[in-house]
């Protein structure tokens, strides 16, 4: 009843091409922002921040990044974990080498460094396609993890081989280190998520996003109509790695505080983020959020029900989680290959006609 474009007249091109053309959508978007920035930071507690909100936000960034590469540009990557490791370690080296510079700048710089590494590993994509590329990105995953494990310079020669984030402040409030409070963690991640989502949305609907999609739909045809595959593919790798690097840096500095590379950035992370974008929906920013929320909430929910509710032991619950995640992925691919984002879209289409569908 409220979700209508009727009566909502556009009088300029800017109005016509805005992200949320329907007024109700626009208000909903502002409403979500107000809640996220204005209300949640004041009521969030440690459990919700650590178990749900902060991982959700961080993985949402990583999922947006992978979605740009896989969903928009069609280049399947299994190297997400490795690129996240680059972000994390770049952030650590910057934090310890330049302690006076703000952590926010370090996080951004970590993204740029990862973008550089991403371009390097993206170069073979000009020759290699499809599965072959997916396997080639595994080289990035294993090589980078090995590198951070074996070269002591990256972890500042610490005895344990771990890296741990020193304490850093933004406007006098600790955001990394042992004394950081739940709301500060949450807010830092939220700022980055908002920025990244805004950037991704606007990149994907502009020239560059269109060239990515042209490459995805058929690269030879795209080349013939004048899309430069070198530029399109490498920018996709760069932008995607930029986001993934920021996610990796946040995961290390803000969320975990101390990481061991094989554990925090292993191949499982690559698959986790890939599942997020499959379940959420390939080629959709909303899908990245939906998928991240789904994959973060599912284990928490299962754990609460199986371990807390039924009293099973945790190992059993973990195995069960594997079964359910695997089955869900297959079910999604069969029933709705475009993921949660498509369901959301269908719901909105229905809503436009509701309550008089004829």
């Amino acid at each position, binding site marked *: 009843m409220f979700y209508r474009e009727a009566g909502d007249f556009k009088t300029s091109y800017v109005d016509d091409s805005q992200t949320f053309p329907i007024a109700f959508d626009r208000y909903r978007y502002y409403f979500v922002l107000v809640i996220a920035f204005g209300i949640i930071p004041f009521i969030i507690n440690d459990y919700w921040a650590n178990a749900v909100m902060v991982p959700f936000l961080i993985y949402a960034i990583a999922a947006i990044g992978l979605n740009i590469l896989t969903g928009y540009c069609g280049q399947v990557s299994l190297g997400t974990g490795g690129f996240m490791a680059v972000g994390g370690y770049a952030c650590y080296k910057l934090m310890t080498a330049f302690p006076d510079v703000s952590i926010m700048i370090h996080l951004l710089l970590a993204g740029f460094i990862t973008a550089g590494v991403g371009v390097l590993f993206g170069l073979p994509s000009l020759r290699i396609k499809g599965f*072959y590329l997916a396997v080639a990105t595994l080289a990035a995953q294993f090589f980078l993890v090995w590198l951070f494990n074996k070269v002591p310079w990256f972890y500042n020669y610490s005895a344990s081989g771990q890296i741990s984030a020193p304490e850093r402040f933004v406007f006098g409030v600790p955001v990394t280190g042992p004394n950081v409070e739940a709301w500060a963690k949450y807010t830092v991640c939220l700022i980055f998520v908002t920025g990244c989502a805004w950037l991704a949305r606007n990149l994907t609907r502009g020239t560059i996003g269109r060239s990515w999609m042209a490459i995805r739909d058929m690269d030879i045809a795209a080349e013939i109509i004048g899309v430069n595959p070198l530029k399109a593919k490498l920018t996709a790798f760069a932008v995607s790695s930029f986001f993934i690097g920021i996610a990796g840096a946040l995961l290390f500095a803000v969320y975990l505080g101390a990481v061991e590379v094989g554990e925090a950035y292993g191949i499982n992370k690559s698959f986790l983020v890939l*599942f997020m974008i499959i379940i959420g929906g390939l080629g959709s920013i909303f899908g990245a959020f939906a998928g991240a929320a789904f994959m973060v909430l599912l284990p928490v929910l299962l754990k609460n029900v199986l371990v807390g509710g039924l009293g099973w032991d945790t190992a059993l619950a973990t195995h069960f989680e*594997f079964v359910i995640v695997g089955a869900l992925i297959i079910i999604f691919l069969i029933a709705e290959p475009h993921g949660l984002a498509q369901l959301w879209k269908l719901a909105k289409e229905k809503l436009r006609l509701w309550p008089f569908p004829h």
Partner: protein
Amino acid sequence: MTDQFLFGVEVVLNGLMAGVLYALVALGFVLIFKASGIFNYAQGVMALFAALTLVGIMEGQVPFAHLINAIFGTEIHHFGWHVPALAAILLTMVLMVFFAWAVNHFVMRHLVNQEPIILFMATIGLAYFLEGVGDLMWGSEIKKLDVGLPQGASFWIEENTAFLGSENFFGFFIDQLDIVATLVAAVLVVALVAFAQYTKQGRAMRAVADDHQAALSVGISLNFIWVLVWSLAGFVALVAGIMWGAKSGVQFSLSLIALKALPVLMLGGFTSIPGAIVGGLIIGVGEKLFEFTIGPMIGGATENWFAYVLALLFLVFRPQGLFGEKIIERV
């Protein structure tokens, strides 16, 4: 001959043996890829699942014991009998055939005509599912698999090659299990090729691989062929699972071997059975030699990534692999 050179030869020999085991896993991939165009990521987990099931049946474990105990509060773990190895292998094979049927019936049949990448992701989902089911059924602790294969160093080879070097050289150290694995792999490849070339079902399989629609139009049942191919892949997975399981115990890391098989495939080409073997040998020897010569200089454990980087570099020059069919692209 210097000892250093002889050690190098030993490394190469061991690399060849490891390569055979990689090739065994890669073979399963090639079979499914050729017949249905599906890149089956779950191959490694199938090997793990087959090995777990084999151990479980031999030990007389109760399937889903943990789950049953958690739900009903019982304390059952074992039936209390032991099944001989051969019977257990047959039973496991029956289960793998059932699994092949289930995959085809519940998953692949619904994904006909989807893009290859969607099918690939479906098999990733399948891998997760199967891994979870395997752990639920048989428990996740590391198990010993003993089906009576000879194990340990072969003293005969060690004694008879010791004369080659000085007194510091004690002869080539080669695991007997590796020799058995090599023989089994050779027999398996010959059998598979013979099956594909000389039997009716094999011909139908090749026809499906060539062109689905043409095969359908001459009356070949796609469903049957796919079940057949997945069963064959299950059989190869079982063999690989037995070999790896006997070598390093049945544990989760077995499924990571599947990942190692990927560069093997890329090197050999996705569509070629000899390619899988040659690729496996190159990767096996390459990574062992690299670890032996360059490894100590850069911190070791290079086996983790060498195969992938080698495949990556190789593909840049020859995108279809060594024996793969030339990739022709049209708009």
